[in-house]
Protein backbone atom coordinates (compact mmCIF):
# COMPACT_ATOMS: atom_id res chain seq x y z
CA UNK A 1 0.00 0.00 0.00
CA UNK A 2 1.35 3.38 -0.94
CA UNK A 3 1.31 5.59 2.19
CA UNK A 4 -0.75 8.73 1.76
CA UNK A 5 1.16 10.87 4.25
CA UNK A 6 3.69 11.87 1.64
CA UNK A 7 4.21 13.00 -1.96
CA UNK A 8 5.92 11.33 -4.92
CA UNK A 9 8.00 12.21 -7.98
CA UNK A 10 7.90 10.79 -11.50
CA UNK A 11 11.36 9.38 -10.80
CA UNK A 12 9.98 7.30 -7.91
CA UNK A 13 11.26 9.24 -4.91
CA UNK A 14 8.93 10.00 -1.99
CA UNK A 15 9.04 13.14 0.19
CA UNK A 16 7.55 13.46 3.69
CA UNK A 17 7.55 16.57 5.83
CA UNK A 18 9.40 15.93 9.10
CA UNK A 19 9.22 19.12 11.14
CA UNK A 20 11.22 21.75 9.28
CA UNK A 21 12.87 19.13 7.10
CA UNK A 22 11.78 17.10 4.07
CA UNK A 23 12.61 13.39 4.39
CA UNK A 24 13.35 11.57 1.12
CA UNK A 25 13.44 7.91 0.10
CA UNK A 26 12.49 5.69 -2.83
CA UNK A 27 9.13 4.02 -3.37
CA UNK A 28 8.33 0.35 -2.98
CA UNK A 29 8.02 0.10 -6.77
CA UNK A 30 11.52 1.54 -7.15
CA UNK A 31 13.17 -0.83 -4.66
CA UNK A 32 11.41 -3.75 -6.31
CA UNK A 33 12.69 -2.78 -9.79
CA UNK A 34 16.22 -2.32 -8.54
CA UNK A 35 16.38 -5.69 -6.88
CA UNK A 36 18.60 -6.38 -3.88
CA UNK A 37 20.34 -3.12 -3.08
CA UNK A 38 24.04 -3.53 -2.48
CA UNK A 39 25.26 0.02 -1.91
CA UNK A 40 24.05 3.55 -1.34
CA UNK A 41 26.32 6.47 -2.11
CA UNK A 42 24.96 9.05 0.33
CA UNK A 43 25.27 12.76 -0.49
CA UNK A 44 27.33 14.89 1.89
CA UNK A 45 25.60 16.92 4.57
CA UNK A 46 25.67 20.55 3.52
CA UNK A 47 25.53 19.76 -0.19
CA UNK A 48 23.08 21.94 -2.12
CA UNK A 49 20.34 20.14 -4.02
CA UNK A 50 18.54 21.24 -7.18
CA UNK A 51 15.06 19.89 -7.93
CA UNK A 52 15.24 17.19 -10.58
CA UNK A 53 19.02 16.85 -10.48
CA UNK A 54 20.79 13.65 -9.42
CA UNK A 55 22.17 13.88 -5.91
CA UNK A 56 23.07 10.34 -4.98
CA UNK A 57 23.37 6.82 -6.40
CA UNK A 58 21.81 3.51 -5.37
CA UNK A 59 23.45 0.33 -6.61
CA UNK A 60 22.02 -3.11 -6.98
CA UNK A 61 23.63 -6.08 -8.67
CA UNK A 62 22.03 -5.25 -12.01
CA UNK A 63 21.71 -1.49 -11.95
CA UNK A 64 23.04 1.76 -10.59
CA UNK A 65 20.28 4.31 -10.32
CA UNK A 66 20.51 8.01 -9.77
CA UNK A 67 18.29 9.43 -7.05
CA UNK A 68 16.99 12.81 -8.12
CA UNK A 69 16.47 15.52 -5.53
CA UNK A 70 12.71 16.15 -5.37
CA UNK A 71 13.23 19.63 -3.93
CA UNK A 72 15.87 22.33 -4.12
CA UNK A 73 17.57 23.05 -0.81
CA UNK A 74 20.44 21.68 1.26
CA UNK A 75 21.17 18.21 2.66
CA UNK A 76 20.58 18.42 6.42
CA UNK A 77 20.97 14.78 7.39
CA UNK A 78 21.71 11.36 5.88
CA UNK A 79 20.68 7.91 7.05
CA UNK A 80 23.88 6.03 7.91
CA UNK A 81 21.87 2.86 8.47
CA UNK A 82 21.20 2.41 4.75
CA UNK A 83 24.90 2.80 4.10
CA UNK A 84 25.91 -0.01 6.44
CA UNK A 85 22.81 -2.10 5.70
CA UNK A 86 21.54 -1.26 2.22
CA UNK A 87 18.93 -4.04 2.38
CA UNK A 88 16.98 -1.78 4.77
CA UNK A 89 15.70 0.09 1.72
CA UNK A 90 14.34 -3.15 0.24
CA UNK A 91 12.74 -4.26 3.50
CA UNK A 92 11.30 -0.95 4.66
CA UNK A 93 11.46 1.69 1.90
CA UNK A 94 9.01 4.06 3.57
CA UNK A 95 10.21 4.17 7.18
CA UNK A 96 13.64 2.83 8.20
CA UNK A 97 14.80 3.08 4.56
CA UNK A 98 14.75 6.89 4.36
CA UNK A 99 17.88 8.18 2.63
CA UNK A 100 18.38 11.88 3.32
CA UNK A 101 16.65 15.00 4.64
CA UNK A 102 16.55 18.41 2.96
CA UNK A 103 16.29 21.80 4.63
CA UNK A 104 15.54 25.32 3.27
CA UNK A 105 13.19 24.01 0.62
CA UNK A 106 10.16 25.70 -0.93
CA UNK A 107 6.75 24.43 0.21
CA UNK A 108 5.39 25.33 -3.21
CA UNK A 109 7.77 22.81 -4.81
CA UNK A 110 6.52 20.20 -2.34
CA UNK A 111 2.88 20.91 -3.13
CA UNK A 112 3.62 20.44 -6.82
CA UNK A 113 4.50 16.77 -6.37
CA UNK A 114 2.08 13.84 -6.88
CA UNK A 115 -0.03 12.49 -4.03
CA UNK A 116 -0.12 8.74 -3.38
CA UNK A 117 -3.15 8.07 -5.58
CA UNK A 118 -1.71 9.97 -8.55
CA UNK A 119 1.57 8.16 -8.07
CA UNK A 120 -0.14 4.77 -8.09
CA UNK A 121 -1.91 5.69 -11.29
CA UNK A 122 1.38 6.88 -12.77
CA UNK A 123 3.11 3.57 -11.95
CA UNK A 124 0.24 1.64 -13.53
CA UNK A 125 0.46 3.72 -16.70
CA UNK A 126 4.23 3.17 -17.03
CA UNK A 127 3.88 -0.62 -16.88
Amino acid at each position, binding site marked *: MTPDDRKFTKTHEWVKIDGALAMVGISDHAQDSLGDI*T*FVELPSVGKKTAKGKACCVI*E*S*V*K*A*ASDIYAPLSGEIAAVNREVQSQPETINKDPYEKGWIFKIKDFSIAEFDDLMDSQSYEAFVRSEA
Partner: protein
Amino acid sequence: MSFIANTREQQNEMLRICGLSSIEELFNDIPKNLRPRSFSLPSGKSELEVLQILENYAAQNYSHLINFLGGGFYDHFIPSAVDAIASRSEFYTAYTPYQPELSQGTLQAMYEFQSDICRLTSMEVANASLYDGGTALYEACQMAIHATERPKVIVDGGVNPIYRKMLYSYTANLSIDFCEIPVSHGQSNREKVFASLDEKTAAVVLQNPNFFGVIDNHADIVEKCHSMGILIIQSVYPVAMALLKPPGEIGVDIATGEGQSLGIPLSFGGPYIGFMAATKKLVRKMPGRIVGRTIDKKEREGFVLTLQAREQHIRREKATSNICTNEALCALRVHAYLSLLGTQGLRDVANLCVNKALYAKARFKKVPGVKVMESSPTFNEFTLRLPMDAAEVAGKMIEHGFAPGFPLGRYYPGMENYLLVAVTEKRTRYEIGAFAETLEHVLRTTSSRAGLAEKGTA
Protein backbone atom coordinates in the same frame (compact mmCIF):
# COMPACT_ATOMS: atom_id res chain seq x y z
CA MET B 1 40.10 -21.76 -46.28
CA SER B 2 37.28 -20.28 -44.25
CA PHE B 3 36.60 -22.82 -41.50
CA ILE B 4 33.02 -23.33 -42.61
CA ALA B 5 31.65 -26.82 -42.08
CA ASN B 6 28.31 -26.82 -43.90
CA THR B 7 28.09 -28.38 -47.35
CA ARG B 8 26.08 -26.96 -50.23
CA GLU B 9 23.43 -29.57 -49.50
CA GLN B 10 23.11 -28.53 -45.89
CA GLN B 11 22.95 -24.86 -46.87
CA ASN B 12 20.07 -25.60 -49.26
CA GLU B 13 18.19 -27.49 -46.57
CA MET B 14 18.61 -24.53 -44.22
CA LEU B 15 17.47 -22.06 -46.88
CA ARG B 16 14.35 -24.14 -47.34
CA ILE B 17 13.50 -23.84 -43.63
CA CYS B 18 13.95 -20.10 -43.96
CA GLY B 19 11.59 -19.98 -46.89
CA LEU B 20 14.31 -18.70 -49.19
CA SER B 21 15.74 -20.07 -52.39
CA SER B 22 19.20 -18.56 -52.46
CA ILE B 23 21.81 -17.17 -50.14
CA GLU B 24 21.68 -13.87 -51.97
CA GLU B 25 18.11 -13.37 -50.80
CA LEU B 26 19.41 -13.12 -47.24
CA PHE B 27 20.98 -9.81 -48.20
CA ASN B 28 17.98 -8.25 -49.94
CA ASP B 29 17.89 -5.48 -47.35
CA ILE B 30 21.19 -4.14 -48.63
CA PRO B 31 20.29 -2.07 -51.69
CA LYS B 32 22.29 -2.49 -54.93
CA ASN B 33 23.75 1.00 -54.63
CA LEU B 34 25.19 0.24 -51.19
CA ARG B 35 27.08 -2.86 -52.29
CA PRO B 36 30.89 -2.68 -52.12
CA ARG B 37 32.54 -0.61 -54.81
CA SER B 38 35.44 -2.98 -54.56
CA PHE B 39 36.31 -6.03 -52.50
CA SER B 40 39.55 -7.19 -53.96
CA LEU B 41 41.87 -8.96 -51.59
CA PRO B 42 44.62 -11.42 -52.43
CA SER B 43 43.04 -14.83 -52.92
CA GLY B 44 42.72 -17.04 -49.87
CA LYS B 45 45.71 -19.19 -48.98
CA SER B 46 46.20 -22.54 -47.35
CA GLU B 47 47.66 -22.86 -43.87
CA LEU B 48 50.99 -23.96 -45.33
CA GLU B 49 51.28 -20.89 -47.57
CA VAL B 50 50.35 -18.51 -44.78
CA LEU B 51 52.99 -20.07 -42.53
CA GLN B 52 55.59 -19.48 -45.22
CA ILE B 53 54.60 -15.85 -45.71
CA LEU B 54 54.71 -15.09 -42.02
CA GLU B 55 57.93 -17.05 -41.43
CA ASN B 56 59.47 -14.85 -44.05
CA TYR B 57 58.32 -11.70 -42.26
CA ALA B 58 59.48 -13.01 -38.89
CA ALA B 59 62.92 -13.69 -40.32
CA GLN B 60 63.27 -10.03 -41.26
CA ASN B 61 63.13 -8.94 -37.63
CA TYR B 62 66.21 -8.57 -35.41
CA SER B 63 64.79 -10.41 -32.43
CA HIS B 64 68.13 -12.04 -31.67
CA LEU B 65 69.98 -8.93 -30.48
CA ILE B 66 71.38 -9.16 -26.93
CA ASN B 67 68.86 -7.03 -25.14
CA PHE B 68 69.90 -4.18 -22.86
CA LEU B 69 66.85 -2.21 -23.94
CA GLY B 70 64.25 -1.35 -21.28
CA GLY B 71 62.34 1.91 -20.98
CA GLY B 72 59.52 0.25 -19.07
CA PHE B 73 59.43 -2.99 -21.11
CA TYR B 74 61.94 -5.68 -20.21
CA ASP B 75 63.47 -8.87 -21.56
CA HIS B 76 62.77 -11.20 -18.64
CA PHE B 77 62.83 -14.98 -18.55
CA ILE B 78 59.42 -16.59 -19.06
CA PRO B 79 59.13 -20.14 -17.67
CA SER B 80 57.88 -22.67 -20.24
CA ALA B 81 54.93 -23.61 -18.07
CA VAL B 82 53.45 -20.13 -18.53
CA ASP B 83 53.02 -20.77 -22.25
CA ALA B 84 51.69 -24.25 -21.59
CA ILE B 85 49.06 -22.93 -19.18
CA ALA B 86 48.01 -20.01 -21.37
CA SER B 87 47.68 -22.31 -24.40
CA ARG B 88 44.91 -24.35 -22.84
CA SER B 89 42.03 -23.54 -25.14
CA GLU B 90 39.50 -23.70 -22.31
CA PHE B 91 41.18 -20.49 -21.18
CA TYR B 92 41.90 -18.72 -24.43
CA THR B 93 38.74 -19.57 -26.35
CA ALA B 94 36.47 -18.61 -23.46
CA TYR B 95 34.58 -15.34 -23.35
CA THR B 96 34.20 -12.77 -20.58
CA PRO B 97 32.82 -14.62 -17.57
CA TYR B 98 29.31 -13.10 -17.55
CA GLN B 99 27.81 -16.57 -16.91
CA PRO B 100 29.79 -17.43 -13.79
CA GLU B 101 28.67 -21.07 -13.47
CA LEU B 102 30.61 -22.04 -16.57
CA SER B 103 33.52 -19.67 -16.15
CA GLN B 104 34.82 -20.59 -12.69
CA GLY B 105 38.23 -21.28 -14.22
CA THR B 106 38.64 -17.76 -15.58
CA LEU B 107 36.97 -16.17 -12.56
CA GLN B 108 39.08 -17.91 -9.94
CA ALA B 109 42.24 -17.22 -11.94
CA MET B 110 41.31 -13.53 -12.07
CA TYR B 111 40.51 -13.44 -8.33
CA GLU B 112 43.92 -14.98 -7.66
CA PHE B 113 45.53 -12.47 -10.06
CA GLN B 114 43.89 -9.62 -8.14
CA SER B 115 45.27 -11.15 -4.96
CA ASP B 116 48.78 -11.33 -6.49
CA ILE B 117 48.67 -7.66 -7.43
CA CYS B 118 47.48 -6.66 -3.94
CA ARG B 119 50.27 -8.70 -2.34
CA LEU B 120 52.93 -7.33 -4.68
CA THR B 121 51.86 -3.70 -4.14
CA SER B 122 50.62 -4.06 -0.53
CA MET B 123 47.31 -2.49 -1.54
CA GLU B 124 43.78 -3.46 -0.49
CA VAL B 125 41.95 -4.09 -3.76
CA ALA B 126 42.91 -4.62 -7.40
CA ASN B 127 40.96 -4.98 -10.64
CA ALA B 128 41.19 -7.73 -13.23
CA SER B 129 43.37 -5.70 -15.62
CA LEU B 130 43.39 -2.68 -17.93
CA TYR B 131 45.00 -2.42 -21.37
CA ASP B 132 48.49 -1.35 -20.33
CA GLY B 133 50.45 0.71 -17.81
CA GLY B 134 49.77 3.96 -19.69
CA THR B 135 45.99 3.69 -19.91
CA ALA B 136 46.02 2.46 -16.29
CA LEU B 137 47.78 5.68 -15.30
CA TYR B 138 45.20 7.71 -17.23
CA GLU B 139 42.33 5.87 -15.56
CA ALA B 140 43.95 6.52 -12.17
CA CYS B 141 44.08 10.25 -12.90
CA GLN B 142 40.38 10.17 -13.84
CA MET B 143 39.58 8.37 -10.58
CA ALA B 144 41.43 10.97 -8.56
CA ILE B 145 39.76 13.83 -10.39
CA HIS B 146 36.30 12.38 -9.76
CA ALA B 147 37.02 11.45 -6.17
CA THR B 148 38.38 14.88 -5.21
CA GLU B 149 36.32 16.94 -7.69
CA ARG B 150 39.47 18.93 -8.48
CA PRO B 151 40.90 19.56 -11.97
CA LYS B 152 44.69 19.66 -11.56
CA VAL B 153 47.22 16.84 -11.69
CA ILE B 154 50.95 17.17 -10.96
CA VAL B 155 53.14 14.80 -12.98
CA ASP B 156 56.70 13.95 -11.99
CA GLY B 157 59.17 14.22 -14.89
CA GLY B 158 60.50 10.76 -14.07
CA VAL B 159 57.21 9.19 -15.17
CA ASN B 160 57.63 7.26 -18.42
CA PRO B 161 57.53 9.87 -21.24
CA ILE B 162 55.42 7.53 -23.36
CA TYR B 163 52.80 7.44 -20.58
CA ARG B 164 52.95 11.21 -20.24
CA LYS B 165 52.29 11.60 -23.95
CA MET B 166 49.32 9.25 -23.58
CA LEU B 167 47.93 11.27 -20.66
CA TYR B 168 48.03 14.48 -22.67
CA SER B 169 46.50 12.80 -25.73
CA TYR B 170 43.53 11.42 -23.79
CA THR B 171 42.81 14.67 -21.98
CA ALA B 172 43.27 17.10 -24.87
CA ASN B 173 39.54 17.94 -24.95
CA LEU B 174 38.88 17.74 -21.23
CA SER B 175 39.41 20.56 -18.76
CA ILE B 176 42.24 18.98 -16.79
CA ASP B 177 45.40 20.91 -15.92
CA PHE B 178 48.67 19.05 -15.98
CA CYS B 179 51.77 20.44 -14.36
CA GLU B 180 55.06 18.64 -15.00
CA ILE B 181 57.91 18.84 -12.52
CA PRO B 182 61.34 17.73 -13.86
CA VAL B 183 63.48 15.48 -11.65
CA SER B 184 66.45 16.69 -9.67
CA HIS B 185 69.55 14.44 -9.71
CA GLY B 186 67.30 11.68 -10.98
CA GLN B 187 64.79 11.78 -8.12
CA SER B 188 61.54 13.69 -7.53
CA ASN B 189 62.15 17.38 -6.90
CA ARG B 190 60.38 17.84 -3.56
CA GLU B 191 60.81 21.58 -3.45
CA LYS B 192 59.20 22.16 -6.82
CA VAL B 193 56.50 19.52 -6.32
CA PHE B 194 55.43 20.98 -2.98
CA ALA B 195 55.43 24.49 -4.44
CA SER B 196 52.99 23.38 -7.14
CA LEU B 197 50.38 21.87 -4.77
CA ASP B 198 47.20 23.86 -4.15
CA GLU B 199 43.49 23.44 -3.41
CA LYS B 200 42.85 22.68 -7.10
CA THR B 201 45.20 19.68 -7.10
CA ALA B 202 43.56 16.26 -7.33
CA ALA B 203 46.66 14.09 -7.43
CA VAL B 204 50.40 13.81 -7.83
CA VAL B 205 51.62 11.14 -10.26
CA LEU B 206 54.92 9.44 -9.42
CA GLN B 207 56.85 6.45 -10.76
CA ASN B 208 59.14 4.04 -8.88
CA PRO B 209 61.68 3.13 -10.18
CA ASN B 210 61.31 6.05 -12.57
CA PHE B 211 62.11 6.15 -16.26
CA PHE B 212 65.80 6.70 -15.52
CA GLY B 213 65.84 3.57 -13.36
CA VAL B 214 66.22 5.69 -10.21
CA ILE B 215 64.50 4.51 -7.03
CA ASP B 216 62.98 6.75 -4.38
CA ASN B 217 60.99 6.70 -1.17
CA HIS B 218 57.98 8.95 -1.74
CA ALA B 219 56.61 8.77 1.81
CA ASP B 220 57.29 12.45 2.41
CA ILE B 221 55.38 13.46 -0.71
CA VAL B 222 52.48 11.21 0.31
CA GLU B 223 52.32 12.80 3.74
CA LYS B 224 52.37 16.33 2.41
CA CYS B 225 49.72 15.61 -0.20
CA HIS B 226 47.37 13.80 2.16
CA SER B 227 47.47 16.77 4.52
CA MET B 228 45.99 18.79 1.64
CA GLY B 229 43.43 16.20 0.53
CA ILE B 230 45.53 15.36 -2.54
CA LEU B 231 45.77 11.76 -3.72
CA ILE B 232 48.96 9.95 -4.72
CA ILE B 233 49.17 7.81 -7.85
CA GLN B 234 52.31 5.73 -8.20
CA SER B 235 53.27 3.70 -11.28
CA VAL B 236 55.58 0.82 -10.34
CA TYR B 237 57.83 -1.83 -11.95
CA PRO B 238 56.34 -5.06 -10.58
CA VAL B 239 59.57 -7.12 -10.51
CA ALA B 240 61.19 -4.42 -8.40
CA MET B 241 58.38 -4.75 -5.86
CA ALA B 242 59.95 -8.00 -4.71
CA LEU B 243 62.66 -5.91 -3.03
CA LEU B 244 61.63 -2.26 -3.05
CA LYS B 245 59.07 -0.48 -0.90
CA PRO B 246 55.65 -1.22 -2.39
CA PRO B 247 53.12 1.63 -2.74
CA GLY B 248 50.87 0.35 0.06
CA GLU B 249 53.69 0.67 2.57
CA ILE B 250 53.89 4.43 2.11
CA GLY B 251 50.17 5.18 1.84
CA VAL B 252 49.78 5.54 -1.93
CA ASP B 253 46.11 5.82 -2.91
CA ILE B 254 46.23 4.29 -6.39
CA ALA B 255 49.04 2.04 -7.68
CA THR B 256 49.33 1.24 -11.37
CA GLY B 257 51.91 -0.31 -13.62
CA GLU B 258 52.81 -2.42 -16.60
CA GLY B 259 52.66 -6.18 -16.03
CA GLN B 260 54.63 -7.13 -19.15
CA SER B 261 57.66 -8.03 -17.04
CA LEU B 262 55.69 -10.75 -15.32
CA GLY B 263 55.57 -13.41 -18.01
CA ILE B 264 54.39 -11.48 -21.09
CA PRO B 265 56.60 -11.57 -24.21
CA LEU B 266 57.81 -8.25 -25.64
CA SER B 267 55.78 -8.95 -28.78
CA PHE B 268 56.58 -5.66 -30.51
CA GLY B 269 54.35 -3.62 -28.25
CA GLY B 270 51.40 -5.76 -27.25
CA PRO B 271 49.27 -7.15 -25.91
CA TYR B 272 50.51 -6.00 -22.53
CA ILE B 273 48.63 -5.58 -19.27
CA GLY B 274 47.91 -2.66 -17.03
CA PHE B 275 47.35 -3.40 -13.37
CA MET B 276 45.64 -1.14 -10.87
CA ALA B 277 45.30 -1.44 -7.11
CA ALA B 278 43.77 1.04 -4.71
CA THR B 279 42.51 1.63 -1.19
CA LYS B 280 39.11 0.08 -0.38
CA LYS B 281 37.72 3.59 -0.10
CA LEU B 282 38.24 4.13 -3.84
CA VAL B 283 36.96 0.75 -5.05
CA ARG B 284 33.67 2.06 -6.45
CA LYS B 285 35.54 4.55 -8.60
CA MET B 286 37.76 1.83 -10.08
CA PRO B 287 37.43 1.08 -13.76
CA GLY B 288 37.45 -2.38 -15.24
CA ARG B 289 36.16 -5.72 -14.12
CA ILE B 290 36.51 -6.88 -10.55
CA VAL B 291 36.02 -10.49 -9.43
CA GLY B 292 34.55 -11.22 -6.02
CA ARG B 293 34.25 -14.35 -3.92
CA THR B 294 30.84 -15.61 -2.79
CA ILE B 295 28.83 -18.79 -2.32
CA ASP B 296 25.97 -20.57 -4.09
CA LYS B 297 22.77 -21.98 -2.54
CA LYS B 298 24.62 -25.10 -1.43
CA GLU B 299 27.24 -22.91 0.26
CA ARG B 300 29.92 -23.92 -2.25
CA GLU B 301 32.56 -21.26 -2.78
CA GLY B 302 32.45 -19.55 -6.17
CA PHE B 303 33.56 -16.41 -7.98
CA VAL B 304 31.61 -13.74 -9.87
CA LEU B 305 32.15 -10.44 -11.61
CA THR B 306 31.08 -7.93 -9.04
CA LEU B 307 30.38 -4.21 -8.72
CA GLN B 308 29.27 -4.39 -12.37
CA ALA B 309 26.92 -1.49 -11.77
CA ARG B 310 29.96 0.79 -12.32
CA GLU B 311 30.63 -0.59 -15.77
CA GLN B 312 29.60 0.52 -19.27
CA HIS B 313 27.09 -2.24 -19.97
CA ILE B 314 24.93 -1.04 -17.07
CA ARG B 315 25.84 2.56 -16.38
CA ARG B 316 26.41 3.50 -20.05
CA GLU B 317 27.35 7.19 -20.29
CA LYS B 318 27.74 7.44 -16.51
CA ALA B 319 30.16 4.53 -16.26
CA THR B 320 33.48 4.92 -14.43
CA SER B 321 35.22 4.03 -17.68
CA ASN B 322 34.31 2.71 -21.11
CA ILE B 323 36.51 -0.38 -20.79
CA CYS B 324 34.87 -3.67 -21.75
CA THR B 325 37.41 -6.14 -23.20
CA ASN B 326 40.51 -6.14 -20.99
CA GLU B 327 43.72 -8.25 -20.98
CA ALA B 328 42.38 -11.34 -19.22
CA LEU B 329 44.64 -13.88 -20.90
CA CYS B 330 47.67 -11.73 -20.06
CA ALA B 331 46.45 -11.61 -16.46
CA LEU B 332 46.35 -15.40 -16.53
CA ARG B 333 49.97 -15.43 -17.73
CA VAL B 334 51.00 -13.02 -14.97
CA HIS B 335 49.32 -15.16 -12.33
CA ALA B 336 50.93 -18.31 -13.74
CA TYR B 337 54.34 -16.60 -13.77
CA LEU B 338 54.03 -15.39 -10.18
CA SER B 339 52.78 -18.80 -9.03
CA LEU B 340 55.60 -20.68 -10.76
CA LEU B 341 58.29 -18.39 -9.42
CA GLY B 342 56.68 -17.89 -6.05
CA THR B 343 58.00 -15.68 -3.29
CA GLN B 344 61.59 -16.83 -3.45
CA GLY B 345 61.69 -17.06 -7.22
CA LEU B 346 60.60 -13.46 -7.76
CA ARG B 347 63.08 -12.31 -5.10
CA ASP B 348 65.77 -14.20 -6.99
CA VAL B 349 64.84 -12.49 -10.26
CA ALA B 350 65.00 -9.09 -8.57
CA ASN B 351 68.32 -9.86 -6.86
CA LEU B 352 69.87 -11.14 -10.07
CA CYS B 353 68.76 -7.96 -11.84
CA VAL B 354 70.21 -5.68 -9.16
CA ASN B 355 73.54 -7.48 -8.90
CA LYS B 356 74.05 -7.79 -12.63
CA ALA B 357 73.20 -4.12 -13.06
CA LEU B 358 75.81 -3.23 -10.44
CA TYR B 359 78.37 -5.38 -12.21
CA ALA B 360 77.49 -3.71 -15.51
CA LYS B 361 77.91 -0.25 -13.97
CA ALA B 362 81.33 -1.26 -12.67
CA ARG B 363 82.42 -2.57 -16.09
CA PHE B 364 81.04 0.37 -18.08
CA LYS B 365 82.56 2.92 -15.73
CA LYS B 366 85.96 1.71 -16.86
CA VAL B 367 85.27 2.46 -20.55
CA PRO B 368 87.11 5.67 -21.46
CA GLY B 369 84.77 8.59 -21.92
CA VAL B 370 81.79 6.90 -20.30
CA LYS B 371 80.23 8.25 -17.09
CA VAL B 372 77.72 6.18 -15.14
CA MET B 373 75.12 8.50 -13.59
CA GLU B 374 75.22 7.50 -9.94
CA SER B 375 73.91 10.43 -7.92
CA SER B 376 70.89 8.34 -6.89
CA PRO B 377 70.41 4.60 -6.36
CA THR B 378 68.90 2.52 -9.17
CA PHE B 379 67.21 -0.88 -9.51
CA ASN B 380 68.20 -2.62 -12.77
CA GLU B 381 68.23 0.29 -15.16
CA PHE B 382 70.67 3.21 -15.23
CA THR B 383 71.92 6.02 -17.42
CA LEU B 384 75.28 6.35 -19.15
CA ARG B 385 76.63 9.68 -20.33
CA LEU B 386 78.63 9.15 -23.51
CA PRO B 387 81.16 11.49 -25.08
CA MET B 388 79.09 11.66 -28.25
CA ASP B 389 75.58 11.24 -29.59
CA ALA B 390 74.02 8.19 -27.93
CA ALA B 391 71.79 7.38 -30.89
CA GLU B 392 74.82 7.13 -33.17
CA VAL B 393 76.62 4.89 -30.69
CA ALA B 394 73.53 2.73 -30.29
CA GLY B 395 73.30 2.30 -34.06
CA LYS B 396 76.89 1.02 -34.18
CA MET B 397 76.36 -1.32 -31.23
CA ILE B 398 73.42 -2.86 -33.08
CA GLU B 399 75.74 -3.77 -35.93
CA HIS B 400 77.72 -5.75 -33.37
CA GLY B 401 74.65 -7.66 -32.18
CA PHE B 402 73.51 -5.61 -29.17
CA ALA B 403 70.32 -3.69 -28.50
CA PRO B 404 72.38 -1.46 -26.23
CA GLY B 405 69.75 0.69 -24.56
CA PHE B 406 67.58 3.69 -25.29
CA PRO B 407 69.02 7.08 -26.31
CA LEU B 408 67.24 9.53 -24.02
CA GLY B 409 67.46 12.47 -26.44
CA ARG B 410 64.40 11.12 -28.21
CA TYR B 411 62.15 12.08 -25.29
CA TYR B 412 64.35 14.45 -23.26
CA PRO B 413 65.78 17.39 -25.25
CA GLY B 414 69.31 18.17 -24.15
CA MET B 415 70.05 14.56 -23.22
CA GLU B 416 71.26 13.46 -26.63
CA ASN B 417 74.46 11.96 -25.20
CA TYR B 418 72.65 9.85 -22.59
CA LEU B 419 71.85 6.16 -22.98
CA LEU B 420 69.38 4.28 -20.74
CA VAL B 421 70.62 0.73 -20.13
CA ALA B 422 68.61 -2.12 -18.56
CA VAL B 423 70.03 -5.37 -17.19
CA THR B 424 67.78 -8.33 -16.45
CA GLU B 425 68.44 -11.80 -15.02
CA LYS B 426 68.88 -13.03 -18.61
CA ARG B 427 72.11 -11.07 -19.18
CA THR B 428 75.21 -13.12 -18.41
CA ARG B 429 78.55 -11.94 -17.10
CA TYR B 430 79.95 -12.72 -20.53
CA GLU B 431 77.34 -10.61 -22.35
CA ILE B 432 77.90 -7.68 -20.01
CA GLY B 433 81.65 -7.89 -20.56
CA ALA B 434 81.19 -8.13 -24.31
CA PHE B 435 78.95 -5.04 -24.20
CA ALA B 436 81.66 -3.10 -22.36
CA GLU B 437 84.32 -4.14 -24.85
CA THR B 438 82.11 -3.36 -27.84
CA LEU B 439 81.21 0.03 -26.38
CA GLU B 440 84.85 0.84 -25.92
CA HIS B 441 85.60 -0.21 -29.48
CA VAL B 442 82.72 1.81 -30.94
CA LEU B 443 83.64 4.95 -29.02
CA ARG B 444 87.26 4.66 -30.05
CA THR B 445 86.52 4.16 -33.74
CA THR B 446 83.68 6.65 -34.17
CA SER B 447 84.66 10.26 -34.80
CA SER B 448 82.45 12.83 -33.06
CA ARG B 449 81.59 14.53 -36.36
CA ALA B 450 79.68 11.42 -37.37
CA GLY B 451 77.68 11.76 -34.15
CA LEU B 452 75.49 14.58 -35.45
CA ALA B 453 71.81 13.77 -35.04
CA GLU B 454 69.78 12.89 -38.11
CA LYS B 455 66.32 14.32 -38.45
CA GLY B 456 63.19 12.65 -39.69
CA THR B 457 62.05 9.09 -39.75
CA ALA B 458 63.84 6.31 -37.90
